[in-house]
C-alpha cells in the first residue's frame, strides 16, 4: 500500500495548491451575492495570481535579504501545513513528521517571518500591521492548541492523522467537548485568516487593515506568493475543521478506495463551509481592535472548558 499512500500524499498537496484559490474565489463570490453585489468570477483569484506572477518585481532599496526570502518561507510553511492536514486520506507518509503542536508552530513560523518582513522596510503601516498581527497571533495560538488538545484527549494522540482516524472510523459517539472545541475553532480561524469580525480581507482602508498592511510593500511574484499562501491558510484551516468536526468519508490505510469518494465529498463540504463562512462574515460587523483580545479570550476559554468537559464526562471506569 506504500504506493497508494504516496499517491494520497501527493494528491493532498496538489489538491491544496490547486483548490485553495478556488475556495477563496467561492467565499468572495458568496460574499458579493449576500451583499447584493455583482460577484467576481469564481476563478478571479487564479487570474490575479497569473497577473501578479507576470509583473515586474520591484523591491525597496533598503530591503534586506530577509525581505526577499519571506514570501518563499511563508509559502513553504503553508504548503507543509497542508501536507500534514489529512484532507482525503489519513494514510499520509508525511504525517509522522509533525504532529498538531508542530502544525501550530508552522503557522507561528509563517507569522513571525511575515511580521519581520513587514517591519524590514521600515514603513509605518508595515510596523503597525506587524504589531497588530502579533497581538492577534499570541492570543489565537494558545486557543488553537487547546482546541487540538481537546480533540487529542479523545483519541489520546497528538498526531493529526491519528486523531482524525480515531474520530472518523469509530462507532457513533457524541463528544460534547467537540461542540465547545468547534465553536472555539471557528472563532480562532476567523481571527487567524483575517476574516471579518477581526480583519477585513478586502479593505485597503489604512486604519483598519491588518493582513493587508503587512504585505503592502510587496509586488509581483512576492505578492502572488503571499496571496496564494493566504488562500492556502484558509484552505488548511477549513480542511482541519472539516477533518476534526465532520470527519466522515475520509479514507484510511484499510480503505484506499474511499479516496474516490472522499474527493467529491470534500469539495461538497468545502462548498458548504465556504458559503457558511461568507454568511457569518455578512452577519457580523468588524470589531474594534481592542475587542479582539476579548473575542479570542472567549475562544480560549471555550476550548479549555471543552477539555475540562472531556475529563468530567468520560466514564470513570475508562482511562480519563
Amino acid at each position, binding site marked *: 500500500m506504500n504506493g497508494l499512500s504516496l499517491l494520497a500524499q501527493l494528491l493532498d498537496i496538489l489538491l491544496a495548491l490547486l483548490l485553495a484559490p478556488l475556495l477563496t474565489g467561492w467565499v468572495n463570490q458568496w460574499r458579493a451575492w449576500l451583499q447584493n453585489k455583482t460577484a467576481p468570477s469564481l476563478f478571479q483569484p487564479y487570474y490575479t495570481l497569473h497577473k501578479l506572477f507576470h509583473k515586474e518585481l520591484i523591491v525597496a532599496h533598503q530591503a534586506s535579504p530577509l525581505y526577499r526570502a519571506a514570501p518563499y518561507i511563508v509559502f513553504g510553511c503553508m504548503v507543509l501545513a497542508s501536507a500534514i492536514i489529512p484532507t482525503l486520506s489519513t494514510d499520509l507518509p508525511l504525517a509522522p513528521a509533525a504532529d498538531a503542536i508542530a502544525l501550530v508552530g508552522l503557522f507561528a513560523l509563517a507569522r513571525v517571518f511575515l511580521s519581520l518582513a513587514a517591519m524590514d522596510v521600515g514603513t509605518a503601516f508595515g510596523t503597525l500591521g506587524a504589531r497588530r498581527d502579533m497581538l492577534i497571533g499570541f492570543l489565537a495560538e494558545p486557543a488553537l492548541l487547546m482546541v487540538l488538545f481537546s480533540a487529542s484527549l479523545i483519541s489520546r494522540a497528538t498526531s493529526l492523522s491519528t486523531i482524525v482516524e480515531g474520530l472518523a472510523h469509530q462507532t*457513533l*459517539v*457524541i*463528544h*460534547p*467537548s467537540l*461542540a*465547545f472545541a468547534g*465553536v472555539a475553532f471557528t472563532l480562532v480561524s476567523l481571527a487567524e485568516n483575517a476574516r471579518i469580525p477581526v480583519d477585513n480581507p478586502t479593505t485597503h482602508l489604512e486604519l483598519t487593515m491588518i493582513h493587508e498592511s503587512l504585505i503592502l510593500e510587496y509586488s509581483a511574484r512576492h505578492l502572488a506568493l503571499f496571496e496564494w499562501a493566504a488562500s492556502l491558510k484558509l484552505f488548511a484551516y477549513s480542511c482541519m475543521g472539516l477533518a476534526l468536526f465532520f470527519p466522515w468519508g475520509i479514507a484510511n490505510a484499510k480503505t484506499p478506495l474511499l479516496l474516490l469518494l472522499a474527493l467529491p465529498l470534500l469539495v461538497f463540504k468545502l462548498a458548504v463551509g465556504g458559503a457558511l463562512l461568507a454568511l457569518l462574515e455578512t452577519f457580523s460587523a468588524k470589531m474594534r481592535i481592542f475587542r479582539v*483580545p*476579548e473575542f479570542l*479570550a*472567549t475562544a480560549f*476559554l*471555550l476550548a*479549555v*472548558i471543552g477539555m*475540562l*468537559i472531556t*475529563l*468530567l*464526562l468520560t466514564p*470513570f471506569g475508562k482511562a480519563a
Partner: protein
Amino acid sequence: MSALIAQFINLLAALLLMLSFAMLAQRRILTLIHLFTLQGITLVLSTTVVGYVTSQPHLYYSALLTLLLKVLLIPALLYRVIDRLRVRREVETLINIPTIMLLGILLVMLAFYLAQPLSQMSSSVARGTLGIALACVLLSFMTMITRSKALPQVIAFLSMENGLFFAATSATYGMPMVVELGIALDVLVGILILGVFLFHIREQFDSLDMSNLEQLRDE
C-alpha cells in the same frame, strides 16, 4: 442505544454550559434574552429525553411547563419590559469581560471538582452532568453580581433557576410534581414582582443602575 442517549444528555448539558458562558460574556440585553430562551429550549429537550429514557411521564409535564413558562411566557414578558423601559442599549459590567471569563473558568473548575465525588455516588444516566449544572448555577450567579443594571440581574437570576432545574432533572430524575409546580409559580410571581420593582426603581432614580440603591438614606 441508552449509551447514545446518555451522550445526548451530556451534549445538552454542555450546550447549557456554553449558553451560560455566552450570557456571562454578553453585552446586549436583547441577546441576553435570546440566550435565556435558548437555555429554556435546551432544558425542555433534556427533560423530555430524560423522561423518555427513564419512562417517567411526569417529566413530560414538567418539560411542557418549562416550554410554556421559560420559552414562551417569560421571554415575552421580558421583551415587553425592555420595550416599555426602552433599555436596548449595551449592558455595563462592573469588571471587564476577559477578567469575568477567567473567573468564570475558575468557577467551572471548582464546580467540577465539587461535583466529582457526588456524581460517583449517583447511579442515574447522566451523573456526569451534575458538575455542569452546578457550574451553570455558579456562572449565572457570577453574571448576576457583575452587572450593574437591574434587568440583566433579573435575567441572570432566572438562568440560575434554569441551572437548578437541570440539576434536579438530570441528577435525580426530577422532583415531585407539587414541588415543580410550586417552583414554576414562584418563578412566575418572582418575575412579575421584579418587573414592578424595575418600574419603581426607574421612576425613583431615572435609571436602572443598582449602585443608586446603595445611597438610600432614611429621611
